[in-house]
Each structure stands twice: as structure tokens, then as C-alpha cells.
């Protein structure tokens, strides 16, 4: 009997205008969304390649270890074509400095290079499923009882040996049997796009995630079908049912997530980053004061009064490049750097406490927002989707943890190779080829005497008196074959798996609650 009821509902749905419209809608929107997402992904890949080349060039040209500040570039997630999550908000690369922990990625991950096009509204596959399938689920279920009641067919059915639960299950299966082919169709379309795209490649794990996404989509559709059925069991008229269903849809899909964001933003206060920067600059000031004292004390020990450089480049981040000049200056740095770098790293730890506090505040805000948004099934589904596609906040946090771990690996590498104690930190030049102080002073005096006598005379003097070793161009770049490289492979970690499973269980739980509530309600439904 149930199969008869299922068949009846399936055939009626199949021949209804809403099915045709739903199918056409998916037929149009899904390919369009996939094309846009894949286009965006390809652009991001191009951007990634450019960034990687730039980072490699930077590394290739390093002639001192202090100049090595590797750029970590985040590879675009191929699964982002299914769910973008926060990937467009978090930047693409960061430079690893020893004096400071990396907090966020910088740069624009958004491939749209025209800011005037920011109004361009594009949504990803998961969002389309969340919006369209929930709407279709409600459209197919809002009148499942009311219409039969209005047409008296429900009475004609119950004149026969049919229990209410059989009728209910028949209805549910009939609607699902109509909707699931549409859902499967959407996934088959996406599968075809992936298979036919030469630029996309997915690992077995990725396919596993897509399968999980598909299963979640089914549960998600069931939740909305049951919601529509529940509403239909609560009212007598289809006109009331559709109004309530649409209001519920708007509430769950659009209002609830925004209210959650608003509430999290307003009720969980975080510091402004300006305040964090100020607190960090205070720590830097403390460091510079200590640095100044140390600088003076080393100069005193070496009995030098001021540093002389012939060819020097440096930065507040610890980069130092010295070629030529008096040997006393080189010796100063040989004493100064072994103090400066570890101390700078210590101060980075101090600053990290402030940065972490700020970041924890942001993460707390995000957790509250996500927690509140769990009241909406569509948000549960979207959170789950972005976690499966590695584009959620947790994936980003894990990624940044790995980036910070990489910084630690670099520190260990420098320490183990004793580069802080070595002249290689600041020069490729042999220390012995720096000039004795008296000779350098004589050279400076000679140079002063030709200054102002014309460019040619100056150049001639320099050519005759400057050894090649004083020029950084004289040295080949460092051999960095053993230099640690940053590697990261997105995968479902225990934390994310937990996150996904909780949301999946929540959707299932919601479906079961709605199923029971609707069945109970329908048992008392006035025919």
C-alpha cells in the first residue's frame, strides 16, 4: 500500500509545474554556478602560481641568511568550487619573519581585479543547494496534507485500509523520490564539470568529502521536506501553509545567519587591531631600548665609536646585508647578532601573547556566531560544507598553526646550523676581506679628497680602491637545498572531522525530531 501511495505522489509531483520549474532552475543555476566557481578557482590558481614564482625568486636571490624571509602561499582549495567558505576573506600569502608571528594571510584572494565589480553576486554550489533545494523541498511539501484535505482526497484514501502512518510515510517517500533525482542531477552535473575540466584534480579524500557532502545534502533536503510537512500538518489551508513555509524559509536562510553574525559581533567584544598594534609597538620600544644598550655595550667592548658600512642594507625585521667596510664593524655584528636574533625571537613570543589574545577573541566571536547559527538547518549544512571543502574558519586556523610551526622550524634550522653566530647571517663576504680599520679610514680619506672633483675622477678612484669582494653582486646566491620548505596538505583533521560529524548528527537529529513531531501531529490531523 505504501508503494502505491509513493507512486501516486511521485507521478503527481513529476507531472506538476513545480517539478518542471525546479528542474529547469537547477539546470540553469547549477552549471552557471559551477562555471563561475571554476573560473574563480582557475584565476586563484594563476594568482597562486605568480605568488609562488615571486616567492621562489626571492629565495633564489638571497645571499645572506638574514635575507631569507620565505613567503608562504596558500594553495587554493580545489574543493572550494563546492563551498567557498571564508576563503575569499583570508588573503593568500604571508612572509615568515622571525621577529613576529604570522597572524593572518595578506593579499587579495579574490580573483576579481576590478573593485567596481564588488557588487557582483556569486554563490557557490553548496549555497545553491542550500537555497534552491530547501525552497523546492518546502514547495513540494507545504501542501502535502492541506491540499489532500481541501480536495477531500484524504478522506477517500482513508476510507480504505490505510493507516495514517502508512499515508505519512507514502507522502514523505513520494516527495523525496521526486526531489532526490533533482539533487542527484545537480551532483552529476558537478561531477561532469570536474571530470571534463583539465585544471581540476581531486584526491580520493576529496572524493570522499564530496560523497559526505552529497549525503549531508540528502539529510538537509529531508529536514526541509519534514519542515514543510510539519507546517502542513499544523494548518488546514494550503494558503496558510505556504505563507508560514516561506516565512520559515526566509528566517532560516537569510535572517537567522545574519542575526547570529550581528549578535556575535555585538555581544562578544574584541579589541581593535589598532590597540593590538599599539601594545605590540610598546613591546618593540622596550626591545629597541634594550637593543640600544646592548649595541653600545658591544661597541664599548670592541672599543669602537660608531659603525661604518660601505655597502649595507637592513630592515627592522632583522634583515642585514653587509659588504665591505671596516673589519671592526663586521666583528661587531658577529657579537651583536647572536644576541639580537634570539632576543628578537623572545620579544616575538611576548608580542604573540597579545596577538593570540586578539585572535582568540576573533575565534570566540566566530564560534558564537556559528553556535547561534546552528538554529538554522541551512547554516548547519553550509558550515558542514565549508568544513568538508577546507574553506571554513577551523581549516584556516589549522593552516595558520602550521605556518607558525614552520616559523619555528626555521628558527630551529638557523639555530642548529649556528647561523646567528655566523657571518653568513649578514654577508657572503669572508670576514678577512673586510678592511683593517686604519686602511678603511685611509680609503675614506682618499675618497673624501676626490669628492667634488667630477664623476669620472670619483669613479676612477672607486674602481682602483674597491675590491670586488665588497660588492654583493660578486657572490653567488646561497645554496638552499637543505632549507626547510613549507608543505601543507589540506585534509580532514580530527578536529574538523568532529566538527563535521557534529553538524551531520545535528541535521539527522533535526530530521528525526521533525519526523516524530509531524507524525504525532498528523495522527490528530482533522481530515
Amino acid at each position, binding site marked *: *500500500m505504501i508503494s*502505491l*501511495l509513493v507512486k*501516486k505522489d511521485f*507521478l*503527481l509531483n513529476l*507531472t*506538476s509545474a513545480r517539478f518542471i520549474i525546479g528542474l529547469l532552475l537547477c539546470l540553469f543555476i547549477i552549471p552557471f554556478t559551477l562555471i563561475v566557481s571554476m573560473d574563480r578557482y582557475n584565476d586563484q590558481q594563476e594568482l597562486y602560481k605568480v605568488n609562488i614564482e615571486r616567492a621562489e625568486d626571492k629565495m633564489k636571490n638571497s645571499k645572506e641568511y638574514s635575507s631569507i624571509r620565505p613567503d608562504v602561499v596558500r594553495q587554493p582549495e580545489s574543493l572550494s568550487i563546492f563551498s567557498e567558505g571564508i576563503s575569499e576573506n583570508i588573503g593568500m600569502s604571508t612572509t615568515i619573519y622571525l621577529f613576529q608571528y604570522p597572524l593572518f594571510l595578506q593579499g587579495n584572494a579574490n580573483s576579481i581585479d576590478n573593485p567596481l565589480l564588488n557588487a557582483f553576486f556569486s554563490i557557490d554550489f553548496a549555497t545553491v543547494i542550500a537555497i534552491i533545494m530547501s525552497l523546492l523541498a518546502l514547495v513540494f511539501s507545504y501542501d502535502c496534507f492541506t491540499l489532500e484535505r*481541501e*480536495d*477531500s*482526497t484524504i*478522506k*477517500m*484514501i*482513508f*476510507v*480504505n*485500509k*490505510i*493507516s495514517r502512518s502508512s499515508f505519512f510515510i507514502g507522502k514523505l517517500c513520494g516527495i523525496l523520490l521526486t526531489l532526490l533525482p533533482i539533487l542527484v542531477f545537480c551532483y552529476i552535473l558537478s561531477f561532469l564539470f570536474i571530470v571534463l575540466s583539465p585544471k581540476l584534480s581531486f584526491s580520493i579524500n576529496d572524493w570522499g568529502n564530496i560523497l559526505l557532502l552529497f549525503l549531508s545534502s540528502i539529510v538537509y533536503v529531508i529536514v526541509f521536506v519534514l519542515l514543510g510537512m510539519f507546517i502542513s500538518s499544523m494548518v488546514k489551508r494550503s494558503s496558510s501553509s505556504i505563507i508560514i513555509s516561506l516565512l520559515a524559509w526566509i528566517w532560516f536562510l537569510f535572517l537567522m545567519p545574519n542575526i547570529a553574525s550581528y549578535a556575535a559581533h555585538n555581544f562578544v567584544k574584541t579589541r581593535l587591531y589598532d590597540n593590538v598594534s599599539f601594545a605590540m609597538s610598546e613591546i618593540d620600544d622596550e626591545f629597541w631600548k634594550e637593543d640600544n644598550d646592548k649595541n653600545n655595550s658591544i661597541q664599548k667592548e670592541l672599543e669602537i665609536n660608531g659603525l661604518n658600512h660601505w655597502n649595507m642594507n637592513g630592515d627592522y625585521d632583522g634583515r642585514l646585508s653587509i659588504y665591505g667596510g671596516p673589519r671592526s664593524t663586521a666583528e661587531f655584528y658577529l657579537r651583536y647578532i647572536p644576541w639580537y636574533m634570539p632576543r628578537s625571537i623572545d620579544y616575538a613570543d611576548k608580542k604573540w601573547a597579545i596577538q593570540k589574545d586578539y585572535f582568540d577573541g576573533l575565534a570566540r566571536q566566530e564560534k558564537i556566531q556559528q553556535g547561534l547559527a546552528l538554529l538554522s538547518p541551512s547554516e548547519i549544512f553550509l558550515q558542514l560544507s565549508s568544513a568538508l571543502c577546507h574553506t571554513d574558519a577551523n581549516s584556516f586556523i589549522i593552516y595558520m598553526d602550521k605556518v607558525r610551526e614552520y616559523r619555528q622550524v626555521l628558527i630551529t634550522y638557523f639555530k642548529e646550523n649556528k647561523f646567528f653566530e655566523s657571518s653568513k647571517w649578514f654577508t657572503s663576504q669572508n670576514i678577512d676581506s673586510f678592511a683593517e680599520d686604519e686602511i678603511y679610514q685611509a680609503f675614506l680619506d682618499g675618497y673624501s679628497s676626490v669628492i667634488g672633483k667630477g664623476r669620472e675622477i670619483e669613479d676612477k678612484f672607486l674602481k682602483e680602491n674597491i675590491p670586488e669582494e665588497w660588492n654583493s653582486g660578486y657572490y653567488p646566491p646561497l645554496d638552499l637545498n637543505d632549507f626547510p620548505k613549507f608543505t601543507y596538505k589540506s585534509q580532514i583533521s580530527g578536529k574538523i572531522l568532529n566538527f563535521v560529524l557534529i553538524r551531520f548528527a545535528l541535521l539527522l537529529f533535526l530530521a528525526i525530531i521533525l519526523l516524530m513531531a509531524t507524525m504525532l501531529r498528523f495522527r490528530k490531523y*482533522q*481530515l
Partner: protein
Amino acid sequence: MLQAIELTKRYEDGQLALDALNLEIKPGEIFFLLGANGAGKTTTINLFLNFIEPTSGKAIIDGIDVMENPLETKKYISYVSENVMLYGNFTARQNLDFFAKLGGKTNLRKEDYYTIMRKVGLQEEAFEKKLKTFSKGMRQKVGLAIAIIKDAPNILLDEPTSGLDPKSAAELMQILNNLRNTGKSILMCTHDILRAKSVADRVGIMKEGRLVMLRSREEFLQDDLERIYLDYMQETVMMP
């Protein structure tokens, strides 16, 4: 056979819809239940169909208590509602096929459906047309065909002639007459006194949930049924 024993229904809002109804409709009998709107006619049908639960008393179909064994009683009963809508996107035959299978008739052929539809007076060209193109009278005929095809011993009809043209109503009465001759117990709720006079074996008038008058065919043909009915209705109107 349909039996109501002290059958009472009081709704949750306190309204007494049916007050201790005692009734017995024998096989081969057409019983017309007359009464104004809200008199309790549809409530009676709903109680026999177990669409609502009685407050007290019993509704019995072929010796089986509806409350005790509701699904079992469904085998012995057919129903035609006042407003037969059915499934507009199905053809008349598809509707018939669905409800016939639901009623346990799984071995019927296309020709069997056509025979029934001919029997209720549906035109041949309408058999494979979608029901949404049908007039009310045509839909009513399909509804009747559904009730007939189940071949249940008891048939309940809730104002089936309302909205029908006189010709269709007369055809319907002819069909009921034929069904009575095959031994069916027929309970028909209606306002239609003319039709009652033409085919009813017994007539009952309901007022405010009570069966206030019961007449056999001989009795109501002797008395003036219209006058009796109007008198009862008058009293209803006059009551404070």
C-alpha cells in the same frame, strides 16, 4: 449493515454534534438522512468512517465496531464526498486505478475500469482525460465509480447531488437504485427531499445532533415529506 448505537459526538469546543444516535441500515436499503447544515449528518458519516472518534456509543459496520477495529471496517465501506476533486493531473482511469488498488482490487484491467465508468454514465472520451478538465458532475461520477469499484457492502454518500444538474442527479439516483438491488446498505446525507422521495427506503431527519424523525417509504409517501421537513426546519429557525 450499518449500525449506530447511542452514538454521540461532542467536539472539544463543547458543541454537541451528535446526540445518542440509534440507527440501523440493512443490506439492500437506501437510507436518506435529511437535515439543515450543522444538524450532524456529516458527523455521522465521519464517525462511521472513523475520521473522528465518538464521545460515546458505537458505530458498527457489518458487525465490527469501528472504534475497536477501524482498519478492518474499511474493507466493508465505500464513500462519496460532497465535493469530489480527486487528482487533477491523473486521468479518470488513473484515479480509478489508484483508488481501486487502494481498496484491494489489484487485478483489474483497463476494460474493467471502462465498464464501471460507462455504468456511472461517464462519456467514453472522458476516460483518458485529465480530471482537472472535468465538470463537477463528471467528477462526481468518477467518485461514484470509485465507490462502486471497491464493491463494499456499505456505501456512504455525503450530499452527492449538491451542485449537480437535475439530469446528473437523476442518473445518480438510478445508479443508487441499482446498487440497492445488489444488496448494498446505502446511507446518503442530503438536503434533497425530491431525491429522497424517489429512491429512499427510509428517511431520517436530524436536528441539532438528534434524529428527530424516522419514516419508512410507505409512511413518508403517505405523509407530505416536504411539509414534515419544512416543519422541522421551521422549528429550528424559531428556536432561540
